């Protein structure tokens, strides 16, 4: 087990370096002056450009730039924006909000999706199965921003059940509706995955054995069936946490949430390359670590899988 973890960790390193270098390259190796239009209507004074080039070491080769940036990052220094705000501080303000939103979304999609998947997977064809199939089709087909707008118009503006935007504190209860919107697409996938996985495992030999041993139904389903059907679902949920952290740009925009997605989108529009690279490095790291954790969970869920 220990050797497997170590090998997986070592495999993560080239992927991490590759992904972050790719983003660094895309953000900074833009042809042309990154400071055009930053000083209003007139061109920037040469001293300013020289100071900026020096600060972000833009005169160096891109690889050297990247190495310098990453070694600063490893000591926890995310650098500063052009207006000398600390990027680490900006991220530490936005990240908890995004994390809360992602957790709410994953919890909602897991609870509703898995429940729907189990019910339809166990019952087989029938009214409920068709209902879930059709509703998941619609959830997949409707883009997130349409769901967001429709819910905001109907619940927020017309029925006035809830406030259409989220306050700057972004408490858990305020995030339920945005979390639902964010998780709606994945909810459909989770329920379909669970349904397919359960329908497949329902006919497995170990199920028949458990039944023949005379075990109670609750134990057969709860212990044998669910545990064996969980792996694809858990894998999907894991990759989804990583995607939702950074993929919430649209949802955060509609509901006015000040999270990571909003921060990075504004940064791209304002050409604040340092913020973009900082956030993306963090997101890639989260994504890779969550995936590693999920891989290790396999052994817990399915004892047939051994790591050696």
């Amino acid at each position: 087990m220990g050797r497997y973890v170590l090998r997986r960790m070592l495999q993560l390193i080239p992927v991490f370096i590759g992904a972050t270098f790719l983003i660094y390259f895309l953000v900074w190796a833009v042809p042309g002056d990154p400071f055009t239009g930053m000083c209003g209507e007139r061109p920037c004074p040469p001293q300013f450009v020289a100071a900026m080039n020096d600060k972000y070491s833009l005169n160096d080769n891109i690889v050297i730039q990247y190495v310098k940036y990453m070694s600063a990052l490893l000591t926890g220094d995310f650098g500063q924006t052009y207006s000398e705000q600390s990027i680490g501080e900006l991220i530490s303000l936005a990240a908890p909000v995004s994390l809360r939103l992602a957790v709410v979304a994953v919890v909602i999609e897991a609870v509703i999706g898995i429940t729907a998947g189990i019910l339809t997977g166990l019952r087989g064809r029938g009214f409920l199965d068709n209902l879930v199939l059709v509703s998941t089709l619609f959830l997949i087909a409707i883009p997130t921003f349409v769901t967001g707008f429709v819910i905001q118009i109907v619940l927020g503006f017309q029925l006035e059940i809830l406030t259409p935007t989220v306050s700057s504190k972004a408490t858990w209860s305020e995030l339920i509706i945005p979390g639902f919107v964010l998780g709606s697409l994945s909810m459909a996938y989770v329920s379909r995955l669970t349904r397919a996985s359960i329908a497949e495992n329902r006919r497995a030999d170990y199920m028949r054995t458990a039944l023949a041993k005379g075990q109670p139904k609750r134990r057969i389903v709860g212990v044998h069936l669910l545990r064996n059907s969980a792996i694809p679902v858990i894998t999907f949920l894991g990759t989804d946490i990583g995607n939702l952290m950074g993929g919430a740009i649209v949802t955060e925009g509609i509901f006015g949430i000040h999270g990571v997605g909003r921060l990075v989108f504004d940064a791209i529009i304002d050409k604040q390359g340092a913020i973009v690279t900082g956030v993306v490095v963090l997101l890639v790291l989260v994504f890779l670590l969550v995936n590693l954790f999920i891989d290790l969970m396999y052994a817990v869920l399915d004892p047939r899988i051994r790591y050696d």
Partner: protein
Amino acid sequence: MTDPTTAAAGAATDQGVSAYVTAPEHQDSGPGKPRSLWSDAWQDLRRRPLFIIAGAVILLLVVIALFPSLFTSADPNHKDLDFSRKPPSGDAWFGYDLQGRDVYARVVYGTRWTLLVGLAASLLTVLIGAFFGILAGYFGGWVDGLLSRIGEIFFGLPFVLGAIVILNLVRNAQIRGALPIVGAVVASIAVLSWPVAMRIMRSAAIAAKQQDYVKAARALGASSSRIIFKHMLPNCLAPVLVYGTIALGAFIGAEATLSFLGIGLRDPAVSWGVMISDARNYVRVAPHMLLFPAGFLTATVLAFVMLGDAVREALDPKLR
């Protein structure tokens, strides 16, 4: 596998075979040669209502995309500020937008851009992914390791974020004209999605490599490229094509999302996503500006997802 003695005996054994094989799935295959996976799937598909509905919707959309003037006589770019944000009426079924343009005409003319992006992105993703996937699966070893690591690098980038960064780069490069803009959006979607297609192709290729027909071809001295393109590719294509069909719907949604964020398509390539983006600030006063393009978008994605579902069920015998 057919028994070699009966296969060699030819047509006369047909009766003999059907005397042994009485399971219902073998009976209706009829005389002549047995059906291939594809014709089998086609027979199955033709009977599915889901496939027929989805196919009809898609056919209609393709006709709209190719000949928009058949469906509206109004000019999508004709502006008349007198009609600004007028709700739907007999003259303009979907109402008018902010600048007094006919929303219905714009939706009809926007179909081609939306479909073009979805189709091209899906095709490019499948091409890149299938190419690298079959190489990784066939050669294994360090080729597989290298390609898989590269795939993981692209897979590790969050989709929306990656697309924004790439498209922002393109926007700074001052690209003009409809087709180059479409090309940029298509390329950014494909660059971020190909690892999924590669994984699917890779696992199919690894499975196919163990099959007897590949071993036989190699024993006969076939070259690697011949084995890959003549023997393995036709047998590995099904899962990737299923992915491609389902992804087509997803990519249309992705284009709309990117356009909605203001970095996807833009004038003169006005897709439904661009229309929704234009309408977002007037949602409360003129919801028709948003709802009609959004409705068309949803129906289109729905049709492609349904088509993908039907094709997958027809091609994957395990689900039957």
